[in-house]
């Protein structure tokens, strides 16, 4: 199987997963007791005009899916509706038009709010992941090389403890410390900052970004370090390391040219698998630091029972994770020649 073939197959599966997410997202919100679309239009915060608009928008008077008046497949309704006018079709149609509904709380289209927030989350995750991967990898390699020494045991203990810290609690503790050390306690910029010069704006952003990023980095660094350490311990006991040693290569050369790439393979797999899990951490960090990202949106939506926002945020988070997972898969196939040609 060649690389192009593999790419096609992976892309196909990612699309399938996204489709699954879309369907899941629809049914969760229509089936579960909360039934937000229906409950939502009774929300006292909405004006009668909005309610009427929502009705037509979601097609709430239409059946959920064709032929079934209810979602109970045993109670079949007559098939007298236009198949293109069921709630599900309307939902999918709206989705493709980029319409995620109106936030009950903000009274603004959900997609507008989430669009800004997506970038904030990507900024936080991107920065945090890069730091966590770099530090975790370096630390893990060092610990594995110095196996069974104080350095190694120290790394193992710090790793296990950091891994056991609940992310939100670590965030709270850092926030508690940061609030008395001049760090801003919420948001991503100081109000009124936009009128200041760009350099100062960036400085302000960095200040706001500092604590959330540190929290993120500590939690995920620990995991990456533990994985890198154990993966490198395996690699360093492989026969090709002995070959390299017999060839006369120095320790540094062996680590750089033979151990690093091989040791990274399990790490990439874990990063790919854990992307969904990473998002869990982001929700917590954004909640604690009131970071205006997708995770924070989810948190706020829960507390404000803002269902369209919840639905939109979940969909966007899930789709982003699927896409990120696809990228991680591609990275793996790039790193391991056995995938491309095997």
């Amino acid at each position, binding site marked *: 199987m060649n690389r192009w073939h593999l790419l096609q197959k992976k892309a196909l599966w990612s699309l399938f*997963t996204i489709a699954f997410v879309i369907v899941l997202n629809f049914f*969760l*919100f229509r089936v579960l*007791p*909360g039934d*937000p679309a229906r409950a939502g239009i009774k929300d006292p915060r909405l004006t009668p005009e909005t309610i009427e608009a929502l009705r037509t928008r979601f097609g709430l008077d239409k059946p959920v899916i064709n032929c079934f008046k209810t979602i109970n497949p045993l109670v079949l309704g007559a098939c007298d509706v236009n198949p293109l006018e069921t709630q599900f079709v309307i939902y999918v149609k709206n989705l493709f038009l980029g319409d995620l509904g109106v936030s009950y709380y903000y009274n603004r289209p959900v997609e507008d709010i989430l669009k800004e927030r997506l970038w904030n989350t990507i900024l936080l995750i991107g920065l945090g992941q890069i730091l966590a991967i770099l530090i975790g990898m370096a630390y893990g390699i060092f610990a594995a090389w110095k*196996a*069974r020494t104080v350095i190694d045991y120290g790394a193992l203990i710090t790793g*296990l403890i950091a*891994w*056991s*810290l*609940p*992310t*939100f*609690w670590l965030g*709270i*503790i850092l*926030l*508690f410390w940061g609030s008395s050390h001049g760090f801003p306690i919420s948001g991503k910029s100081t109000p009124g900052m936009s009128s200041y010069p760009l350099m100062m704006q960036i400085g302000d952003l960095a200040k706001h970004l500092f604590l959330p990023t540190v929290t993120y980095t500590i939690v995920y660094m620990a995991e990456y370090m533990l994985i890198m350490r154990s993966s490198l311990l*395996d690699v*360093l*006991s492989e*026969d*090709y*390391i*002995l*070959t390299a*040693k*017999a*060839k*006369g*290569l*120095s*320790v540094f*050369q*062996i*680590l750089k*040219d033979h151990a690093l*790439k*091989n040791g990274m393979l399990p790490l990439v797999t874990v990063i790919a*698998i854990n*992307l*969904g*899990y990473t*998002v*869990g951490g982001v*929700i*917590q960090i954004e909640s604690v630091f009131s970071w205006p990202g997708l995770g924070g949106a*989810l948190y706020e939506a*829960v507390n404000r029972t803002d269902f369209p926002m*919840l639905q939109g945020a*979940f969909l966007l*988070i899930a789709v982003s*994770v*699927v896409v990120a*997972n696809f990228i991680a898969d591609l990275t793996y196939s790039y790193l*391991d*020649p*056995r995938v491309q040609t095997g």
Partner: protein
Amino acid sequence: MNVQLTESSPAAPVQRVNYWKIVSRNRVALLGILMIAVAVIVALFAPLIARYDPKSSEGISSSDVYNPPSAKHWLGTDDVGKDIFTNFVYGTRVSLIVGFFASFISIVIGGIIGLMAGFYGGRVENFLMRFTDIMLVIPDLPLIVVIVALTKASLMNIIFVIGIFGWTTTARIVRSQTLAVKSRKFVLRAKAIGAGNWHIVIHHILPLVLPIMVVNAILVVSSAILSESTLAFIGLSDPTAISWGQMLNFAFSRGAMSVGAWWALVVPGFGIVWIVLALTLLGNGLEQILNPRLESHHLMPGRPSFQSEAEAAPVKTGKSTAPVLLDVQNLSVNYVSDGKVAQAVRNVSFQLHEGELIGLVGESGCGKTTLMMALTRLLPAAGEISNGHVIFHGKDLAALTDEELSNLRWSGISVVFQGAMNALNPVRTVGDQIEEAILKHIPHFPPKALSARVEELLDLVGISAEHKNHFPHQYSGGMRQRAIIAMALSCNPQVVIADEPTTALDVMIQAQILELLDELRKKLGLAVLFVTHDLGIVAEMCDSVLVMYGGVTAEYADVDTIYNAPRHPYTQELLKAFPDLTKPERRLTSIPGSPPKLDALPPGCRFAPRCPVAFERCSKEAPALHRLGENHLASCHLVEA
């Protein structure tokens, strides 16, 4: 080295694995268990430990809000003036209940899916694993948040939702373990005796899958507890049950931060860390027990060489008049682990002359690989050269600094490793790995000539240039072995050590490789030390033979003497045990017993317990190496002149 097991006495009772004994020996796991035990005790006896009733608001006034720790409230009070210590103690219950029940649901679902996928394979596996992959990619915390937010945040709901979305890792792990167990030969054997699927799953697969499931279950419990506390912190918790996450949520959202009530923020988190750390430690400890890692890796610093004996007169070997290239004198190697010393090689001497091919033979565990590794100090970290010299061009390899040694490796002495093992790095091309060796020893090798040199080397071993940029997995076993030979020759070494280079290959490929080695040796004038257990190969290739047993030289002689006039009983017995195609009607005999364990060597001669002609002296006194002829040495009391 293998762990040595004590022989059980006749009719001994079944030595069932004592799990507690194994687990308690692992300090990490033990610490985890103790920490969990504390949490369980606190949860069980919460009413006895807590100092107040968490449900009652009796006697609480507005002045009790966010009081710092005091004699009355050990850990202070919260936003409604309740005792944090009391809430903390009761919070243990929720964490443990959610952790236990939610993970139980996950493990059952994941276990069944994993077992079915692994055992049935084919379509079933394809479908189940695709489904698992999809569920794995969908972020579970947001999903759980959404579902709990849409339903009621009751304890029951939370347990159920966490449980049904936490099974993916279990399914993957159980499936891969089931696949691994299923492919093992004892499952095939069970099929061959006529056992049905159900019997095989119960008796052969489950017992080997369960331990891994237990380790996984522990990690699932900890992640369920973390999920619960995160949900509670976000505001999705059962209002009727106090949990640590809920305490944090109330404190965080109700001003603990602004009034500086650190106790309300720190204490509940400490509970979560305690229980999650306990489970993580236990899980890690059990993992270590299940998959014990090697104690060492190839980059750990070796133990320094030393001389434990007085200098002895050098032992001369070989008939050749050619100069000696590699002079090994009284070489001894120990393995040291946990303070115990095992003698792997004891006082072995031989001289390798220019152009000579010496065969080093012996059964597994006789010390031949250790000896070969010791020559260029490639021993594992536990190995040490405890005596002797390895002289190459006037330098003692046993005493060189690491850097001097690095320069000599490959350019002076190179090693042909067994290619079926992982001697080539799987993620780098073969050509690249050969170039690397050249550049290490000739740093200024003209870049333009480098590629041509690699092609020339590959051509020398019969691999066409187009394979240069291929990866090892694209090579067949025979080609890999050829590539390794090309790599070994890349820096024009004078001595080549070949470590069982044909062991895993088919006879025809073996013959090709042996012929190639022999040809190259003659063409390039190489001196070769050929390590093997195959007496047939030795007879067909070697000039001289060194037979090792239990770490010592049993016999050394030229190849004709070894096969036609062996003097050591071990050599004689070994030849009787070795098949000869030209004499098919000959009935083979075996040597009773098994080779000695290096950490439990018999007193006296190491072969005495298996020797058919041993007498009293043999079990008391180790025989010296006797010279029987110009080029014939043997260590046996019977050959003493």
